[in-house]
């Protein structure tokens, strides 16, 4: 499809009249290959024809779009299941030589039918279940006066500049006429379950916020330190700031600890449903000040991870990409316990996890795309003999 993508790109540039000379030659070459290509170029160059093609494309499903999609899905399912059941029956076809074992076979077949029926029941149950789509770019901005603005899902990153909040593409978050943000204001960005968002601070520091997280920060940093408050999980790429020979440290306050850095990249996970606040250093070094009594600040170097609780701290060497994979749209597990894995899944798909029995003791390793639907993820997990099902907005572990 690479070649096709290239041709599509050239055609779009042609439509927008932004082809460079070289690109023009490239498009000419392609068009000269065949009269059909020439014809295509001519039709998309005519606004009226392109317009009607776009309308056809938009209305391709006819009047009842969702109905047509459902019908297509159902017909595919029927065909697939028919194909697999013919295969099954073939398995039970016997030859006349096996006559002697016929009673035994009837017994087996009886069990098989019973099993197949059992499976069918489960299948028809799960057919009613609605799949749950993965999370997306969701966040709410809260201004100093308490006003809340839902951030655009087609964007994914906001930055504050001279009292004006922008998305990455340059469009403004607040419309003209709405009050701008004063330098001394604190704003906060809250990412719900099933969301992720990026925030660029006034000093150029980038922060990725994971689901169920919140960052509170000033519109402009004042004084000798740059301090922000984090709930939940965030990945920080801190810009180092030197002015007039002075270095301005950057401080992240979470529950149970404060992190002080000069310029570095790290992930900090401080969810309230986990006992420890986990800091993972990707680059440089940070100083961590735990909150528990008798605590001293300690230094964390790149490739290391600290876990701070109310009782103490521990440090170990880790593969950092495992802990930052979420910002690259991946689940990354390494000997991760079932419960921890489900916590991540529950945050991203905005579901509750209900355990019908004991929590499975298996550990999981590997990567999984965060853009899969929940059903797909669960089907993958069921394979490894853990039985999980969607029920409404919950995941039930049997």
């Amino acid at each position, binding site marked *: *499809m*690479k*070649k*096709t993508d290239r*041709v599509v790109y050239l*055609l*779009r540039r042609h*439509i927008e*009249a932004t082809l460079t000379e070289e690109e023009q030659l490239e498009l000419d070459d392609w068009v000269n290959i*065949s009269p*059909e*290509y020439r014809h*295509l170029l001519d*039709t*998309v160059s005519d*606004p009226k024809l392109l*317009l009607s093609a*776009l*309308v*056809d*494309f*938009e*209305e*391709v*499903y006819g009047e009842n779009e969702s109905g047509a*999609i459902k*019908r*297509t*899905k159902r017909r595919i*399912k029927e*065909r*697939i299941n028919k*194909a697999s059941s013919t295969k099954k029956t073939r398995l039970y076809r016997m030859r006349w030589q096996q006559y002697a074992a016929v009673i035994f076979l009837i017994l087996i077949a009886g069990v098989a039918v019973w099993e197949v029926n059992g499976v069918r029941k489960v299948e028809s149950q799960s057919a009613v279940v609605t799949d749950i789509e993965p999370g997306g770019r969701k966040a709410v901005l809260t201004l100093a006066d308490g006003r809340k603005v839902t951030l*655009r*899902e*087609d964007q994914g990153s906001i930055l504050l500049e001279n009292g004006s909040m922008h998305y990455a*593409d340059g*469009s*403004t978050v607040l*419309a003209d*006429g*709405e009050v701008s943000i004063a330098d001394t204001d604190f704003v906060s960005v809250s990412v719900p379950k099933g969301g992720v968002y990026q925030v660029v601070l006034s000093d150029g520091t980038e922060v990725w916020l994971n689901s169920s997280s919140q960052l509170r920060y000033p519109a402009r940093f004042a004084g000798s330190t740059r301090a922000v408050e984090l709930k939940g999980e965030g990945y920080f790429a801190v810009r180092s700031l030197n002015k007039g020979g002075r270095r301005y440290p950057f401080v992240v306050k979470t529950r149970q600890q404060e992190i002080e850095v000069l310029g570095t990249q790290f992930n900090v996970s401080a969810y309230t449903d986990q006992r420890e606040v986990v800091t993972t250093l990707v680059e440089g070094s940070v100083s961590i000040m735990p909150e528990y009594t008798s605590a001293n600040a300690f230094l964390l170097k790149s490739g290391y991870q600290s876990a701070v609780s109310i009782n103490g701290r521990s440090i170990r060497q880790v593969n950092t990409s495992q802990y930052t994979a979420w910002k690259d749209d991946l689940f990354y597990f390494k*000997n991760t316990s079932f419960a921890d894995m489900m916590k991540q899944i529950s945050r991203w798909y905005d579901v509750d996890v209900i355990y019908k029995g*004991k929590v499975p*003791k298996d*550990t*999981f*390793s*590997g*990567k*999984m*795309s965060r*853009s*899969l*639907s929940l*059903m*797909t993820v669960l089907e*993958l997990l069921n394979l*490894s003999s*853990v039985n999980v099902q969607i029920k409404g907005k919950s995941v039930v572990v049997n």
Partner: protein
Amino acid sequence: MGKFRPVQIDHSLLDALRIGSESALDTILKKHGRKLLYFAQSIVKKPEIAEEVVVDSMVKLWEHRETFETSDSVSAFLYVVIKNLGINYIKSSYASREYDYELTETLESLDPDAYAKIVRTELLQSIYDEVSKLPEKQREVFKLTYFEELGTEEICEKLNMSAPAVFTNRFRALESLRLVFKEKNMWLGLVVLQMLLSKH
């Protein structure tokens, strides 16, 4: 039961498809359904036959699910299958649904007529993707303002929004449209507006 057992997982959408996840197939249909149907219609003309062809192509994809390495190859496979099924239909009223699919067949080996249709489909998809990026609220406010010529107050009432919110959404819609389509191409703006209109 209950024993410690390490489980290895490594899953993208294609991995999920490979091991037989039906919801992965749903996701693929959701992603590609519109363009596949459009392409099928460009070959067989009749909408109900086009739908049949798309269903068949997805079943073929399922049957060959273990062979795909990249999502590009999924797209290419579906196009090739739809083209062949479509041509079969035109030639023989769809008697030979069970043609033998050759995995060696590629997009490049298609005849120029079919390939031009694929390029056209991909082009429309790429423009469509851009237009559908406009958020729902913006589309709504925009439509009411410019086509139903309602005043701000009426829109506030109709959409249950505050006046600033209506202004914000109108402003943003205009701004996004300006960014997406350069001033030079006013007609492309018209295309967008047409689509906005047909949206609801």
